[in-house]
């Protein structure tokens, strides 16, 4: 398999996951604000989670619902629209590898988004828009799962998807902690609701309830999302998937070493203690560094080509990493 194609499959996996994650994130927070109309800064935390503060501030002078929605739905920089474009461009150059129906689905996603994106600016049409987007994403993921042979191309999509997931989960947990610690927010009595929204952002509420027979509380949520190996969006699970997919790739020594290192970081730390000592934020920073190391090692091992031969950088979608 061509290195360039491998790289594009990987980024396709990431972008598609990013579309779904961002859609879900907006959906959940739109619900949350209806429960907590007095708590300010919810929209701000969406910008924090996506790590796009600087870009946002360059475009808008005020953080409010409308601007955040415009930014996350329709902006060129880091929106759902941009992630769909990223997925589509990477798919466009790998069409000969992916089952042809998936290209049709990606086109449908892109056509739907372009037609209806303004629906999501106001609350009334937002749910419908985001649900449809999440639905098509799931359809594509399911279609690939059901039709692509589990060999090299699929492994790269899977690695991309799971790294992106792990990345998103750590960001959401991180912002949850920061909000709790921020006295200005006056979370206080709403702590429980906040952790529930962290869970629902990751579609984790039901699975959490099935495994943790206790009320929703910060300690259990953090432990579940970072260390649970069964839950598909748990960081430990995502890393295990990345490791498994990498097992069957050629020349994988260095990549596996980096992945194992990240797995150990998660396994060997008591995240509940870290949370209670207000050190979880620093710990998550470390996990994020590990994830970025994995990305770097994948690039060195499997994607590296003569960069000077690339077309100009703005034409190379594979170089963009929107959320950092």
């Amino acid at each position: 398999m061509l290195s360039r194609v491998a790289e594009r499959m990987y980024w396709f996996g990431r972008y598609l996951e990013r579309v779904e994650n961002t859609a879900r994130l907006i959906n959940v927070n739109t619900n949350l604000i209806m429960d907590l109309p007095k708590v300010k800064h919810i929209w701000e935390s969406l910008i924090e989670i996506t790590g796009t503060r600087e870009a946002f501030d360059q475009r808008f002078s005020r953080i409010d619902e409308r601007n955040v929605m415009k930014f996350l739905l329709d902006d060129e920089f880091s929106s759902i629209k941009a992630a769909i474009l990223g997925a589509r461009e990477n798919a466009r150059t790998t069409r000969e590898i992916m089952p042809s129906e998936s290209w049709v689905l990606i086109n449908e996603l892109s056509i739907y988004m372009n037609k209806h994106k303004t629906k999501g600016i106001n609350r009334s049409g937002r749910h419908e828009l985001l649900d449809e987007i999440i639905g098509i994403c799931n359809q594509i993921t399911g279609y690939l799962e059901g039709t692509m042979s589990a060999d090299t191309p699929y492994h790269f999509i899977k690695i991309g998807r799971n790294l992106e997931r792990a990345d998103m989960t750590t960001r959401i947990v991180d912002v949850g902690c920061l909000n709790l610690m921020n006295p200005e927010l006056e979370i206080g009595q709403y702590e429980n609701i906040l952790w529930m929204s962290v869970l629902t952002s990751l579609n984790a509420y039901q699975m959490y309830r099935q495994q943790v027979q206790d009320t929703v509380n910060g300690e259990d949520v953090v432990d579940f999302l970072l260390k649970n190996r069964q839950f598909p969006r748990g960081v430990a699970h995502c890393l295990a998937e990345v490791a498994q997919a990498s097992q069957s790739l050629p020349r994988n020594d260095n990549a596996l070493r980096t992945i194992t290192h990240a797995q150990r970081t998660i396994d060997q730390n008591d995240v509940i203690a870290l949370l209670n000592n207000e050190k979880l934020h620093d710990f998550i920073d470390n996990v994020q560094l590990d994830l970025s190391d994995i990305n770097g090692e994948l690039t060195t091992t499997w994607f590296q080509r003569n960069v000077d031969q690339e077309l100009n950088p703005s034409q190379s979608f594979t170089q963009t990493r929107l959320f950092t």
Partner: protein
Amino acid sequence: MDLKNYTIPDRVFDEILTNTNRARPGLGQLVNFLKKNGIQNLNERKHNAELAIQTMGITFTVYTEGTNIDREWPFDIIPRVIHQKEWTSVEKGLKQRLQALNLFINDIYNDEKIIKDKRVPKDLLASSKDFRPECVGMNPVYNTWAHICGTDLIRDGDGTMYVLEDNLRVPSGVSYMLENRNISKRVMPELFKNHDILPMDDYPAQLFDTLSSISPRPLDYPEVVVLTPGIYNSAYFEHSFLAQRMGAELVEGSDLIVADDDCVYMKTVEGLSRVDVIYRRIDDLFLDPEVFNKDSTLGVKGLMRAWRKGNVALANAPGAGVADDKVVYTYVPEMIKYYLGEDPILPNVPSYMCTDKKQLQHVIQNIENLVVKPANESGGYGMYIGPRESKRRTAEMKRLLKANPRNYIAQPIVNLSTVPTLCDNNLEARHVDLRPFILQANKSYVTAGGLTRVALVRGSLVVNSSQGGGSKDTWILASKD
């Protein structure tokens, strides 16, 4: 749908209807279908076709549109039909033509017999933009240089099919031909029940066989790749389509490397992997910065070296474009006689050689009734159509002709045939041409039909998709025994 008002222009052959607006022989069912279905029904089908094109992502690119790299493929639902009996002869003519063209290319890069025998003037080649001195002395397998050819055919008022031009460099359109059929089946399934239409979808398999057969290493599974300039090329859709259908890798120049052993390798996740055959969709001059355009970032450094050493096969071979030249075109009937000892089955459109003083004079005097074409352009760019041009453009054309007669050929205006086409709320006659695709290596193959391009503007003769042309499905209708 009433066809009473359907008007076929004077001295024009309509492919579906006679000049009394009756169905041509064998096309009764198709014409009845058009009559039976109201305009609303046809428009609905057209809309469905457009939706299919959109979701299937069938696109092409118009360079002048800047960053908009997706334009949906323009398609008209009403097919163009040719009877198998006529097609069999066209097919023979196309194979004959490509054989002669390949013998010609091989000859002029080697013994130059045809020049020594004075059947073709020597200075013709010296002044051809696509003659590559770097290719002299090469002998590709089967003496075949142009493995893939797209030949444009047009039908004059009397029904004669003429060859308008041969595209031997990187002819495109074949994927659209195949997709047109898919869409056609989807939006007008009932027509396929009543008509015996020859299938065409074995083209990718035939192409793969052709490419495999020229591999320099006799392997069971030669590594065949499609080399594309990338997503900004107008035919990127086609490059990826063909790679997908052939199960070949779609590579860009930066994916390939020529190593010290002068073999071509692609960079894969496993490491370097040898490449045997490159179906290149990049023009000669961008292929290898070591030999041609030094600034090319699309090509592969050392590719010509590898090819000259016989370590990799290139399709089409570099230099094959020499026979693509519109002046060389005028000698093709001569080539067929010279190399094959046969009479040409398909005639050329009569052409005036502007390098001949008498003919040039005739062209300049009658320019308002002629078509003048640049010898080396494709896509219909720079074409001059006498009766439609302004006085200023005419004066300019005359000046250009005098200054550089070798760069142009002139032809009488051929009244391209028409096919009923859905225009707004009516069926109207629109001019069409036809581009079948011919393969040649160890054997020859012609697609069952080709890409029919249609000029969507009333009266227009310019069918190129880059200039507002559309396309139609092309049916070769099996003869009833």
